[in-house]
């Protein structure tokens, strides 16, 4: 049994009085202790919905309409709110894009850290303080002792995100779910923060679900990858394998579109069109209107995820070469 086992998760929002639209349309994943999973997809693909659904945090009027989330064998979706609070922010921590979602602007860093600790542990003031300082040092915050009395606005964006990581680590969680933790930060600060998350996960054997739209970031940090499109997983497998030999045309297209792959001044490979909104999904495979390899069958039914890829005509290394020649011919 895997530590985390998500099966066929659906999230729905009401549309009109009697109808619903699905933001997540049946996503499954497993996560072992210490494993690092990347979730990649374009805006609106359902990445954040997946993270929130795992923690049973989908806000009204949305709801998890189907599926299970088993954490060490226990379905989190069956738990009472009081019970799940023992898990959320304790055994599974979250890091968001905006540190101010986690941090309270009117409380000092120290007070916030102590509150988190006391919510989950019986611990004396002195011990709590020592632990907070230790965690701030772990995330390499300079002069940790004096920063306990600082307020969030007195810190730079990068330092704030470090504090959020320190808070996420306070309770020695088994899983960290990080939803675009560095998207708002500069490249050099992103490198600092991701290096820190990677180091801490390795040292403490913490599992990570890293949500991002940056393939470079998942390639650097994760071992396993899931590519999402229009509320579904279209390809999943070892990160290295997908990056080197993607099988879903969308995964392959995303990789080929990266400017670092193209010669200077040449035309970039481009995927035509854009991802459809969940309210207006095309029939058949949701990617077929943009796909170079679509056949009649793709207009009919939606392909299931088989052996890690949801495609009727998955690429082999041969067919991947075929598009390569096609792009060259175009230019």
């Amino acid at each position, binding site marked *: 049994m895997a530590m985390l086992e998500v099966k066929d998760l659906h999230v729905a929002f009401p549309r009109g009085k009697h109808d619903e639209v699905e933001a997540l349309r049946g996503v499954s994943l497993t996560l072992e202790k210490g494993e690092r999973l990347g979730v990649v997809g374009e805006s609106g693909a359902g990445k954040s919905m997946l993270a929130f659904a795992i923690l049973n945090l989908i806000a009204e009027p949305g709801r998890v309409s189907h599926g299970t989330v088993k954490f060490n064998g226990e379905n989190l979706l069956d738990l009472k709110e009081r019970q799940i609070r023992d898990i959320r922010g304790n055994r599974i921590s979250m890091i968001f894009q905006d540190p101010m979602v986690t941090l309270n602007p009117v409380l000092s860093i120290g007070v916030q850290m102590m509150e988190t600790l006391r919510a989950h542990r019986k611990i004396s003031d002195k011990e709590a303080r020592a632990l907070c300082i230790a965690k701030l040092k772990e995330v390499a915050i300079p002069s940790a002792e004096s920063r306990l009395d600082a307020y969030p606005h007195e810190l730079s964006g990068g330092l704030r995100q470090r504090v959020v990581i320190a808070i996420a680590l306070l309770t020695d969680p088994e899983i960290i779910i990080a939803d675009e933790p560095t998207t708002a930060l500069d490249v050099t600060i*992103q*490198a600092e923060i991701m290096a820190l998350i990677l180091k801490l996960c390795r040292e403490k054997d913490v599992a990570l679900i890293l949500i991002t739209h940056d393939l470079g970031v998942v390639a650097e940090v994760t071992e396993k990858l899931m590519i999402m499109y229009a509320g579904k997983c279209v390809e999943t497998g070892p990160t290295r394998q997908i990056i080197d030999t993607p099988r879903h045309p969308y995964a392959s297209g*995303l990789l080929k579109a990266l*400017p670092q792959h193209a010669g200077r001044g040449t035309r970039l490979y481009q*995927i035509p069109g854009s991802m459809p909104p969940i309210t207006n999904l095309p029939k058949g495979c949701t990617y077929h209107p943009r796909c170079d390899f679509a056949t009649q069958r793709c207009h009919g039914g939606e392909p299931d995820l088989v052996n890690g890829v949801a495609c009727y005509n998955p690429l082999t290394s041969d067919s991947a070469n075929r598009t390569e020649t096609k792009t060259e011919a175009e230019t």
Partner: protein
Amino acid sequence: MSTPSVNSGPIVETKGVEVRFPLPTHFLSREKPVLHALNTVNVSIMPGESFCVVGESGCGKTTLGRSILGLNSPTAGEIYFRGQRIDQMDEATRKPVRRDMQMVFQNPYASLNPRRNVFETLAEPVRHLMPELSANEARTRVEQVLSETGCDPSWQRRLPHEFSGGQRQRIAIARALVTNPAFVVADEPISALDVSIQAQILNLLTELQQERGLTYLFITHDLSVVQHFGTRVAVMYLGQVMELASAETIFAEPKHPYTQLLLEAIPKLEGGSFDKPRQPGELPDPVNLPKGCPFAARCHMAQDRCRQERPQLRGLPNGTEVACHFAE
């Protein structure tokens, strides 16, 4: 000094440009705080170039673009367009220059007026800057530019909120090109877009450049885009140009320690960038600029001289210009 000629000289040149923003005074303090957004910036952009400006948030990229277009006034220095000084022109003299210099703004969600449909958005600069065109000619002009930028003619009567980010960015590019400019400042034109859409927009900008012989000042924080798209690059830090080199050279031989840090920080498909832990680096405050090199506090090579004396750009044998006392 020779008189700059129209053909051989730079299309845009800044000489010692400095921009300072006065900030509100604190009620208990007599000090008048001033934010240093640009400090003696000298760049010259040749016709047909894709001149890139890179650097982290707040380093002055947008301010440089806006200053060149006259959208904010430099507190010191000179700006030339085709050899003609433009930074002190009054609005009337500047008008013919404006149609030659346009901007695609940083955020496609904020830069289009939500109450104007696409036709009005594009017709406005035509009416204002190309008064010689008749209403009919103006309409033809708008339609032509829309089709050149991959916008469907049926979009004309629709409002910005009906479009996706990529479509809005096409509209913003169409608006910048409608007056047929020679020089376009593209301020992070793809940062807010999804990966699959970024390639579409970069291809469009490249095609338009080839068709029209455009010159770009391309602002970005993504160095991999520079590698693909740029001819020359200025790396900025805290309002100052730290390194100026051809796009090829800067990737092959980055000279400034800050450029090296930026390159190392790019996440790579091959991995390896995040493997060693990094100490937090903090930007100095642009209000209380350090006396010496602005990068000294984060620099692994910094010595006493760096904290005392601000380095100026100087040429290296490989053609790179670098503002560092010790780079070689």
